[in-house]
């Protein structure tokens, strides 16, 4: 068992989890099952991030996506749907044209990206990725950082104002 083989195996298993989870999210009739498979997919994407040496992002992915966003989705499912009523049609009448369009789109992407050469850099990544990200956020990217914090505040207040009862 070589290192490269294990890396390949990890990548393909994680990719399979991501894609299968995504397909179940999109095709499941029961909305709650969709939410659970969404959590599964998001976890697998965190694994992909670890493979790409983005350890901090993997942690953030689990905290924000799996912890907060998926929980929000499940709350939304609970608040708005009759879960017993799963026999309803869950796709609209454009499913087959949409499928064709998506296949075409995917074919286009594969055609464009299959063996396009990119400028692969051999530079070494920073030894401590998290420290480097923290430094960058406080120096070079401090303006976007502040803007995004204001955006979060606005979204918080906006969500409360929109959803509150008159």
């Amino acid at each position, binding site marked *: 068992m070589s290192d*490269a*083989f294990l*890396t390949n195996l990890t*990548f393909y298993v994680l990719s399979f989890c*991501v*894609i299968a989870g*995504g397909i179940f*999210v*999109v095709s499941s009739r029961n*909305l709650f099952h*969709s*939410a659970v498979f*969404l959590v599964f*997919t998001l976890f697998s*994407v965190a694994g*992909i991030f670890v493979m*790409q040496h*983005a350890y901090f*992002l993997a942690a953030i992915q689990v905290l*924000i*996506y799996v912890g907060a*966003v998926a929980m929000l*989705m499940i*709350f*939304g499912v609970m*608040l*708005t*749907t009759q879960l017993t009523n799963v026999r309803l*049609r*869950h*796709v*609209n009448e*454009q499913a087959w044209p*949409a*499928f064709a*369009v*998506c296949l075409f*789109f*995917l074919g286009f992407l594969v055609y464009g*990206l*299959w*063996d396009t050469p*990119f*400028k*692969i*850099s051999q*530079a*070494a*990544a920073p030894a401590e*990725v998290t420290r*480097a*990200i923290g430094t960058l956020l406080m120096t070079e990217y401090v303006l976007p950082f502040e803007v995004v914090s204001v*955006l*979060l505040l*606005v*979204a*918080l207040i906006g*969500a409360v104002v*929109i*959803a509150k009862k008159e």
Partner: protein
Amino acid sequence: MAEATISLNHYLMLSGILFTIGVFGVLTRRNAIAILMSVELMFNAVNITLVAFSDFVTPAALTGQIIALFTIVVAAAEAAVALAVVLLIYRSFKGINVDRINFMKW
């Protein structure tokens, strides 16, 4: 050994497939929350691409990872506001199937 390791294109393929799945969900699902979940899938596909380019093309600068971080924050804000809107729609329409919500169409 030539084919042995995972290249940038592998990650781009994975991301493309996930993005297409998300697009399909957005186009076809009737339930508004299912559409939101599909949008989250698309966000994740984009993040995989950003981090892949960060890892392979600019490993020292980490630009892609920072932008992916901001994407995650914006996605969280989007999810909060969108679910508030969905809740409001549910209250006034007694359902969240988007093909019934056409009062802005003329």
